[in-house]
C-alpha cells in the first residue's frame, strides 16, 4: 500500500514534468518558429500600421460607416478577457426582449435594408467574440454603410463580396465575412470613418441615424 503510494507519487512527478512542462514548452518553441504570427494571436494592422486587433476576435463597431458584428455577451460586449454567450434559453423572456429591442434598433438604423433583420444580428454568438457575419447579413448592412460613407452601395457591395470566405473543402462551416477585416478593407478603400463614438462604446449600443457622419480623408 505504502509502496503503491510512493510509486503513485513518483508517477505524478514524472507525468507532470513530461506533459505539464516539457510538452507545452516544446510546442511553444516549435510554434514560435513555424507560425509566429498565428501563435501570437493573428494580429492585424490598419492602413496606418497600428495594431487594431486580432483577425479572429470580434470588436465592437458603433459607427454607421462600419459593418457591425453580431451582438456580444462577452463581458460588457466584445470583452476578449471574458468570452461568453448569453446562455439564455428558448423560453427566456430576457432573450425575447433583447431580440425585440435589437431588431427594432437595427430596423431603425437600416431603413433601406432589404428584407427582415438577419438572424445572426439579433443573436449573440457562443464566444461573444465571433468576428463573422454571413454574406447576407453583410449585404443587409450595405445600404447603411454606403450611405454613411457617401459612396455607391455597389462599390461597398463589391468590397463585401471580395471578403466572402466560402466553405472549407466545399462542405465545412458556413460562408462568412469577417467584419473586422471587411471594415479594414473599407477604410483602406474609402478612407477611415471617424465619427462619432458613442459614450457607452459597447456592444449593442444603438447606432444613431446621425452617426452617418464625417469621413476622415487619408
Amino acid at each position: 500500500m505504502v509502496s503503491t503510494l510512493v510509486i503513485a507519487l513518483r508517477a505524478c512527478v514524472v507525468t507532470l514534468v513530461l506533459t505539464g512542462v516539457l510538452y507545452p514548452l516544446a510546442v511553444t518553441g516549435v510554434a514560435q518558429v513555424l507560425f509566429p504570427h498565428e501563435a501570437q494571436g493573428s494580429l492585424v494592422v490598419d492602413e496606418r500600421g497600428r495594431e487594431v486587433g486580432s483577425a479572429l476576435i470580434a470588436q465592437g463597431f458603433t459607427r454607421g460607416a462600419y459593418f457591425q458584428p453580431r451582438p456580444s455577451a462577452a463581458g460588457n460586449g466584445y470583452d476578449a478577457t471574458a468570452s461568453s454567450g448569453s446562455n439564455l434559453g428558448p423560453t427566456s423572456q430576457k432573450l425575447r426582449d433583447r431580440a425585440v429591442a435589437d431588431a427594432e434598433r437595427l430596423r431603425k438604423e437600416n431603413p433601406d435594408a432589404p428584407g427582415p433583420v438577419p438572424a445572426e444580428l439579433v443573436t449573440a454568438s457562443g464566444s461573444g467574440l465571433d468576428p463573422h457575419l454571413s454574406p447576407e447579413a453583410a449585404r443587409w448592412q450595405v445600404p447603411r454603410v454606403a450611405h454613411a460613407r457617401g459612396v455607391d452601395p455597389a462599390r461597398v457591395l463589391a468590397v463585401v463580396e471580395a471578403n466572402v470566405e466560402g466553405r472549407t473543402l466545399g462542405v465545412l462551416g458556413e460562408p462568412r465575412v469577417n467584419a473586422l477585416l471587411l471594415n479594414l478593407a473599407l477604410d483602406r478603400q474609402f478612407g477611415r470613418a471617424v465619427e462619432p463614438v458613442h459614450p457607452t462604446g459597447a456592444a449593442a449600443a444603438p447606432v444613431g441615424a446621425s452617426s452617418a457622419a464625417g469621413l476622415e480623408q487619408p
Partner: protein
Amino acid sequence: MTLIGWLQILLFFALVLALTKPLGGYLFRVFEGEHQPLPRVLGPVERVLLRLCGADARQEQTWTQYTVAMLAFSLLSMLGTYAIQRLQHVLPLNPQGLPAVGPELAFNTAASFTANTNWQSYAGESTMSYLSQMMGLAWHNFVSAAVGAGVALALARGFTRRPGPAGQKTLGNFWVDLIRATLYVLLPICFVYALFLVSQGVLQNFAPYRELLTMEGVKQTLAMGPVASQEAIKMLGTNGGGFFNANSAHPFENPTPLTNLAEMLSIFALPAALTYTYGKMAGDTRQGWALFAAMSILFFAGVAAAYAAESQANPALVASGAAQDGNLEGKELRFGVCGSALFATVTTDASCGAVNAMHDSFTALGGLVPLVNMQLGEVIFGGVGAGLYGILIMVVLAVFIAGLMVGRTPEYLGKKIEAKEMKLAMLYVLIFPLVILGLSAVAAVIPQGLSSLNNAGPHGLSEILYAFTSGTANNGSAFAGLNANTPFWNISLGLAMLAGRFLMMVPALAIAGSMVGKKVVAAGPGTFPTNGTLFTGLLVSVVLIVGALTFFPALSLGPIVEHFLGAAGKAF
C-alpha cells in the same frame, strides 16, 4: 437542414471510420502487442520513465492491485492540482497576477480534471494562471485520459484473456498502461496536432494579455496563453476543459471550420479506435465493430435530432421579426447550425464536454440531445476508455437478457455472466440515477441551488439536470448560464464527478477481475453471436431503455415541457 450540412456530417463520420482501424491497430500494438511500435525511439524512454516511477513493468496486477494503483495515482494527482491552484499566486507564469483559486473552486476543479470531466466553474482567462493551466489542468488532460484507457484495457483483458494454465487472474499493469498511453499515444499525436492548431490561428505563447485600441479606438484586451498545446489534449483526451470560458466556441481555441473538424475528429478518434483494439484483443475484430456499429447508430440518431431541432426557429426570437435561419443564439457563424449541432452531439456522445456553441441557448429539443447523450452513460464512443468500459457494462446487460431469451446461461466471449457480474453491473448502472436525480432533486428545491440559475421555468430545471448529468457522466459541458461557482454547486458537482468516475470504475474493474479467471465456454450454434447486427440492435435498445426509462420523468419536466411551452409561445 441542408444537403451540405449532411455532407459535412457524413464526411466527419467517414473520417472517423477511416481512422478507427489504423489507430485501433496501433493501440493494440502499443498495449497488447509483442512488438512495441516506435521501439527504437521511445522504447528506452518508456523504460527510463517506468524506472523513474519505481514500477516493475513485468509485474502483472490483479484487479485489486490495479484498482489500488489507479486510485492512489488519481488521488495524489488530484491533490497536486488542488495545491497548484491554491498556490498559483506565488508560482511563476502568472503574468496577469491572478490570485489564488478559492478552496471550493479549487476542489471542484481538481475533482473535475482528475475525473476527466473538465467541468469548469471558472472562466479560464480570468481565473487560472498559465502555470495552473499547463501543469494543473493540461497534465490531468493527459493522465486522466490515460487512466481511463487503462481501466478500459483492464476490463477488455478481463473479458478477452483466456485463463492460463496457472489460472492467471491478472489484468495488466496500471503503471505500464499509464506510461504507454501517455508516451506512445497522447504525446506524439498532440504534438503534431497542436502545431496544426497553431497554424490555423490557435494561440501558443506565454505573453501577458495584449492590450490595444480597436479600429474605433476602444481599448481591447486580448487574452493570451499556451492554448494550442492544451487544446490538442483537451480534445484527444476527451477532457473538454477550455483554456477560455467560451471553450471551443472561442476563436482562439477553434478558429476555422477545419480546426472544428479536427477537434471533433480528435474527440472520437481514440474512443472509436479502442473498439477496434478491443476486437483485436478478443481475437475477432467483428466483436469490436459490433460495438462501433451500436455507437454509430446512436450517434446518427443524436446528430439527426440535434440538427433537425437546431434548424428550427428559436421561439424566443420569433417575436423580434428577424429572419429565422435556424437557431443561431449562442452559435458561432463560422460553424453554423450544422457544425454546432454536430459538435454538440459529438462532444456529449464522447465524454468530452468541449463546446463550440452554448448548449444553454439550444432549442429545447436541441438541448435535449446532449442531455440524453450523456444520460445514456457516455457510451456513444464515450470518453477515452470510459466509452469502452461503459459500453461493455451495457453489453453485460444485453448479453444477460439475450442469453435468457435463447435459453442459455448468458455468456460473453465464452465467459459466463453470473450473479456476481450482474450485481456489479447494476451497481454501475445505479450510480447515474442516484447521483444525477438525487442531487438534481435537492438542487431544485433549495435556495443554494436555485439562486444560481440563469433561466427560469422548465429551462432552469434543465440547467440543474444538465449540470449534474454532465458532472456525473464526466462530460463537463454545461448549460453554462448556471453560475456553478458557489460553495453548494462546487462541492456537490465535485462529489458528483468523483462518484461518476471512481464509483463506476471500481465495479468495472471488479467485473474485470471476476471475468478474467473464468473458464471459456466454447461457442456453438446455441450461443448467440455478439458480433452481428442483431446483437448491435439489442445493445442499442438496452442502452436506450436503461437511459430513457431512468431519466424520462425528469426530462419531461425539463426540455420536453419546455418544447411544448415554447411552441405555444410561453416565456419565463
